[in-house]
């Protein structure tokens, strides 16, 4: 009876111990990984945005290239909402440009992320159709959602 109970307690004790060690470290591996992953995703989106604007500058934009880039933006946009758990801000000890306002104004931040998802979904649709003028307009709308969030929630890099 007692032996059995101690066995059930053991895993919890181990768990509590690991949690304590993790909390003690400057930045838990999970935090580092989350921040690195979201930055990598954002970078993919930035590269995809550049592919779209580069294509639109050329006299013969490639529809497949633009469609592919729009899909990269839309699929990464859907992932990013979950990439800002509590404790992954500037206080985490990991280098990040995320501002504390994200967590004090979470509802607005999430709304801005949803706007990105909406506009990038539309971007996929117009790049599938392939009309350059429509793509240009939707690219501007999508870029507007990036900028609106960055101005408020991302530290300006000098």
């Amino acid at each position, binding site marked *: 009876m007692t032996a059995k109970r101690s066995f059930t307690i053991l895993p919890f004790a181990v768990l509590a111990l690991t949690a304590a060690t993790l909390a003690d470290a400057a930045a838990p591996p999970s935090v580092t990984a989350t921040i690195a992953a979201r930055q990598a995703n954002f970078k993919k989106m*930035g590269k995809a945005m*550049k592919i779209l604007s580069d294509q639109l*500058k050329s006299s013969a934009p490639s529809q497949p290239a633009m469609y592919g880039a729009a899909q990269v933006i839309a699929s990464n946009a859907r992932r990013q909402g979950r990439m800002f758990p509590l404790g992954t801000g500037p206080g985490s000890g990991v280098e990040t440009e995320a501002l504390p306002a994200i967590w004090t104004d979470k509802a607005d931040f999430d709304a801005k992320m949803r706007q990105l998802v909406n506009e990038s979904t539309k971007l996929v649709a117009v790049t599938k159709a392939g009309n350059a003028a429509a793509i240009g307009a939707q690219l501007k709308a999508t870029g507007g959602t990036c*900028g609106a969030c960055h101005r408020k929630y*991302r530290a300006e890099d000098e």
Partner: protein
Amino acid sequence: MAEAQARVPGPIRVWDLPVRLFHWLIVGLFAFSWWSGENHDMDWHRWSGYAVLALLVFRLYWGFAGTSTARFAAFVRGPGAALTYARSLAQRPYVAKVGHNPIGGWSVMLMLAALVVQVAAGLFAVDVDGIESGPLSDYVSFETGRAAAKLHHLVFNIALAVVAVHIAAIMVYRFWLKTDLITPMITGKRQSASLPPDAAAAAVGLGLSWRALVGVAAAAAVAYAISVGFRF
């Protein structure tokens, strides 16, 4: 004969018209680029940058083709000349120069260099949203474009510092050496009384020759070609 020529009373032209136009247009556009950049008014910021680009192309050309005080060969001097000049600053009354002095010449080259790097970085820059970008950014990767944007920020702060030193120096001349440098940069002229006796011989013309026309045409053509990223 030479004696009679020595002290022509009245004003002597020391800066040609293109140098003065360049100067005050740069002042205005530098401020406007700053303002439009800070406000993310990127359409205006780009136009302002292309205008600065055209002005720089013209000024670099004018440094070889302009009147004597506009030419680099006349005012880019070695450290020895700068040192001798620095010592001469102790003499009273201070006697002004026709054209740039050996230290001022270096500040001019520093400002021009800062502006050239500033504009060049802007041409390749990509913003974090990947939406606003210079006309040559599609020739480089996203990473290089972001690095160019960071350089654009950094060099702007350097340019501001250099301009601050420039303005401080002009104030030192004004209040400490009792020499007004600002009026000649506006009117082009300085009273010969504040210049060395042989200054009249170094006076410059208005600078409105066919050479200036060639420079304006070349500057406009280069700036246009770059602004469309060489896609004609």
